[in-house]
Every structure is written in structure tokens, then in C-alpha cells.
């Protein structure tokens, strides 16, 4: 077995194991840490595939930025573990059944031998000075320019949505609305209630 194959199996095992433990972890903080481990394992797998730029981006963006935010949120929300876990076991048998069926189906299809090296040729190894970033950039800005721009639109929507849903102008600002103040009627401010003086409440 080649050294790179050994590395592949080590990182592959790390990835599958950490993802499985992430799902069943009781502690949210532990789950976040396991997610970081699985990101690292995938990044290592990508390095083996000679996708250095993507691997580094995964660690920088997901581990460096997204996961830090995740941890902040977990710490700030202080989620009660027991309420979340309460329904976990009731759906467990069904969940196990569904995932077993899916795994069995996948095994059936993937063992059909259509994805191995005999039908799909092995990608050629690149030379030492090969630039990943140049290749990515030239693809993104030529062949995939339309999907690339669409992905940018998707990010724009995310920004607009986040601001629309979270930003509250009214509650914070104390700005006066002059026209509203001038046109105010007495009936808007004072409520005249007619209370009968004879009827009394029953003493308790």
C-alpha cells in the first residue's frame, strides 16, 4: 500500500468517525469541536487530491471564521440540553431504520462497479510548480462565469434577508415624526371612560 493510501484511510476514518460522533454528542460544545475535526480531515483529503487552495480556504473560512461564530452563538444562547435531547430517543428507531435503508441502497448502487478506476480513468498528477489558484480563477471567470455570478446573487440575497429580518428601525430611534405630532387629536391621547357610580364590585 502506498503512503498516500494509508493517509487517505486515516483521514477518511477520522472524518467518518468525527461526523458520527458529532451527531450523537450530548454536549453542543463537544459537537462543535468534532465538527472542526471533521473539517480538518476533509481538508487533508483535499490536500491529497492536490486541491491545496480549497483545503486552505476550508480551514481559514470554516474553522477560522464560521466555527468561531458557532461557538459564540452556543455560548451566548446557553441552550438547555435536556429539552433538545428529550425527543431524540423517540425518533431514534425510525432514524436508524431510514439510514440503514439509505445505506443499503447506496451500497447496492455503488458496488455496481461504475465508479472504480476501470471505468473512470485516474486523474493525472500535476508537476511541482502547478498553480491551483490560477486554474481555479481561469475556470471561474471563463467556463463557469454565469454560475459564479449567480452564487454572488445568492450572497446578496443572504445579506438583504439578514438585514430585513433583524434590523429594527422603530424601536431604537427616538426621531420625532412632526406631521404625526401636529395632526394628533385629543381622542388619540385621552380615553374617556364612563364608569357607573352606583354599581359596585362584589367584595371577594
Amino acid at each position, binding site marked *: 500500500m502506498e503512503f498516500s493510501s494509508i493517509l487517505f484511510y486515516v483521514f477518511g476514518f477520522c472524518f467518518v468517525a468525527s461526523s458520527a460522533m458529532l451527531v450523537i454528542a450530548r454536549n453542543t460544545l463537544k459537537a462543535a469541536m468534532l465538527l472542526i475535526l471533521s473539517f480538518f480531515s476533509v481538508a487533508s483529503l483535499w490536500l491529497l487530491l492536490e486541491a491545496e487552495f480549497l483545503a486552505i480556504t476550508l480551514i481559514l473560512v470554516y474553522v477560522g471564521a464560521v466555527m468561531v461564530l458557532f461557538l459564540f452563538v452556543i455560548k451566548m444562547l446557553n441552550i438547555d440540553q435536556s429539552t433538545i435531547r428529550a425527543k431524540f430517543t423517540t425518533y431514534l428507531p425510525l432514524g436508524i431504520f431510514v439510514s440503514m435503508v439509505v445505506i443499503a*441502497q447506496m451500497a447496492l*448502487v455503488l458496488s*455496481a*462497479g*461504475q*465508479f472504480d478506476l476501470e471505468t*473512470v480513468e485516474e486523474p493525472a498528477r500535476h508537476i511541482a510548480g502547478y498553480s491551483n489558484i490560477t486554474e481555479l480563477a*481561469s*475556470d471561474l471567470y*471563463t*467556463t*463557469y*462565469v*454565469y*454560475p459564479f455570478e*449567480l*452564487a454572488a*446573487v*445568492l450572497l*446578496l*440575497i*443572504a445579506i*438583504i*434577508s439578514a*438585514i*430585513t*429580518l433583524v434590523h429594527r428601525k422603530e424601536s431604537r430611534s427616538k426621531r420625532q415624526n412632526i406631521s404625526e405630532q401636529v395632526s394628533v387629536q385629543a381622542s388619540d391621547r385621552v380615553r374617556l371612560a364612563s364608569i357607573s357610580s352606583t354599581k359596585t364590585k362584589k367584595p371577594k
Partner: protein
Amino acid sequence: MMDYQFNTADLFFALPELFMIAAIALILLLDLFVSERFQNLTYYLTQSTLAITGYFAFNLIGESAVIFDGTYVLDTIGSYFKVFMMVFSIVALVYSRHYLRAHNLLKGEYFILSLLSVLGMMVMVSAHSMLTIYLGLEIMSLSLYTLIAIARDRAVAVEAALKYFVLGAIASGLLLYGMSMIYGITGSLDIGQIAAFATGANLNSEQVLILNFGLVFLVIGIAFKFGAVPFHMWVPDVYQGAPTSVTMFLSTVPKFAATAMLVRLLIDGLGGLQAYWADLFIILAILSIGLGSLVALMQTNIKRLLAYSTISHIGFILLGFITGVVEGYGAATFYVLAYVLMSLTAFGIIIALNKQGFEADQIVDFRGLSKHSPWFALLMLFVMLSMAGVPPFIGFYSKLFILQQVVSAGYIYLAVAAVVFAVISAYYYLQIIKTMYFDDAEKEITVTAPLDMRIILSINGALILVLGLMPSYWMELAISLF
């Protein structure tokens, strides 16, 4: 890359999309700076953007091209769908404005998000690669999730948005998984190359197995977007929880996009596997028609009732695709057109009865409508009879064309079942008519709609009758698209 060819003149074919995104960026900025002084500016700019985009799409009818390295396709069906989507979006936004005013939701973001979601639908309609289909789907859905949650002070709206978001994410995941399988076996994301692979003569049984495996997940993704049983769970809750104007938008224009996604993926791409996906569609169609007709009988909320009625209409649309012939596909497209027309009118009337802090979303709210507003009661009568499939309305002909094709394709038992359920569903449509005409009103009902909405709503409702009297042009057009 040396072999990449970029021709600037090609951009002309994508003019509707390019104009739309440029206009969105402009409106976004203008809304920020001038919306305080000119409150209606965003609304009018949005409407003119839709109109101009529709005009560009209309001018491109008849042209065909595949550009952006095979990720974008311009063809007749795409151009027609875009024109329809623009027209119906304009109508939907006219109705929406009245609702938004009454419920203090009139914000620039509403119109910008609507435009963005229409942009996503256009991308789906013109997609020629699984990548662009997925991106278009996400652009459309993400905007719709936010539109539902825009009434963020209402717990039901937030719940509906979250439910839609979570289920939509799962559906996207399943769709992507199916796409990855298709990509794995065909080695291409391009719809044309997938079609060439799937219709190839020397496919072995293992390759067909993997194609089918991917196909199942694609069908699930499409069924979810349509809201076909058993992937319909989000439909009633979202229809009921969302602000009525969003429900109206959600139930109409995206149906064109979902149809386009079905056409691109299953007919253009995996047309060679028609016999396989038609089997799946039989189950989806018959369950949708059955459940949609039966569960709607118990509803008291009219938005929820229309949700179940939508599910049963979706069943009819899917029936058209089972036939596997051009006439069947045309009948399904005609049904989409008819359904959108009916649904817009139905929700338009619900919105027309809105007042500050009051929504006419219960069936009892329609009691005695014929005495207060005979004209709008008549329009609602048109919609209900049309949805039930009574001649001479458009809903009758759309059902008739579908059933004709289903029978001539040899699925007589499907046609019989569909007719039985259609008769059952006539009960709840007639129930609404009875409520409007024979029950006495408990409280005053007033039509609060402004003049522009009244005019467009009247035209919209009248079209249900007019197109029902002369459906042949539209039917021939729908068949010619395939």
C-alpha cells in the same frame, strides 16, 4: 484556458436576466436613499422592471442559443415562460401592495426580494446545466423564505418560514444528491450531454441502475417544489402562515419555475428514462389528487383550503407528464397557466376584502358577500366553478385536455380515479359559493381594494371565463412549446 471562446454578442441572448439584475442593484440603492421622500418609487420601479424584462423576453421569442459555455439556454419554451412569469408577477404585486398597506408591511425589501425570487425563477427556466438549475432554485427559495418571514411579529409567519426553510433545505440536499449521482455516471453537468448519455444505445444495466438511483432523488426534489404528496407537508402550513400576499405569490409564479425545472431535468435531460419516471409520477399524481380532494373537505380556513386544492391541481399537472407525448406535456403546461390564473383571482379576492388588522381568511368571512359586493362574489363564483371543473370555464378545459391525453395514453384507471376525486372536490368549492350567496352576513363586509386592483382583478377573473370560451389558441401554443 486557451480554448475558451467568449462572444460579447452572446450576452444579448441573456438580456432579460442581465437587465433584471442590473435593475435590482439600482432599485436596492435608490430604495435606501430616496424611499423616504417618494414612498411609491420602489413599487413603480419594480413594476416597470418586470414589464421591461417581460418585453425583452417577448422579443427573444423564436431565438434559440446555448451560451455561457452550456450553462444557459435560450429557447421558445423559456422565453414564453418568462413572459408569463413577468405578467403574473406584475398582477401579483398589484394585489400585494393593497395587502401590505393594510398590514404595515409596505417596505422596499418586499419588492426587491420579489424581484430576486423572479430572477431565480428565470435562471431555472433558462438553465442548461444542473449547476444553474440548483443555483436558480436556491435564489428563488431563499428569497421566498425571507418574504414569508417578513411579517416577523406574527408567530405563525415565522413558524411557516422556518418550516419551509428546513424542509426546503432537506429537499435541496436530496436533489443535490441525485444530481451528484447523475454527474457521477454521465460525467457531465450539461443537460445536453446527460441526454446524449441517457439515450445512448450501449447502456449496461448497472449504468441504468445508477441513473435511476439519481432520478429518484431528482423526482423527490421536483415533487417537493411542486408540493406533491407525499412531499406536501409544508404546503398547508406555509399557505396559512405566510402573509396572504406572499401566499398568493408563492402559489402562482413559482409553479412555472417548477414546471421548467421538471422539463429541463426530466424531459430535456433524462427523456430517455421517461418510462421510469412516469411510474413515479403515477404514484405522486394519484396521491396528490386524492389527498388534496379529501382533506380539503374538512378545512375552515380558506387559505388552507386553497393549499389542499393546489395539491390536487398539482396532481392533475403531473398526470399530463405521465403520458410521455408532446400533447400531454402541452396539456400540463396549459393546466399550469389555467391554475395560476384561477389562484391569482382567488387570493386577489381574499386580499380585496382585507382591512386594517383583519384578514378574510376564514370561510365564514365570506358569508353574504353577494349582497355587499355582487361583482366580487361573481368573480369568486367563477374561480370556484372553474376550479371544480365546470364548463365553460378554463378549469374545465384544462382538466379535459389532461384527461383526454391520459386516456389516449392508455391509463384509463387513472382518468377514472381523477374524475371521481374531482367530483368529491366539487363539494368544497360549491360550499364556498353557498356561503357567499345563501348565508346571511354576520358583520359588514367591505371591499377595500383601490381602483387599480379592482380593474386588474376584474380582468383576471373575466379571463377565466373568456379563455374558457376560446381555449384552443393557448392549447396549441402550449403544445408548440415542446
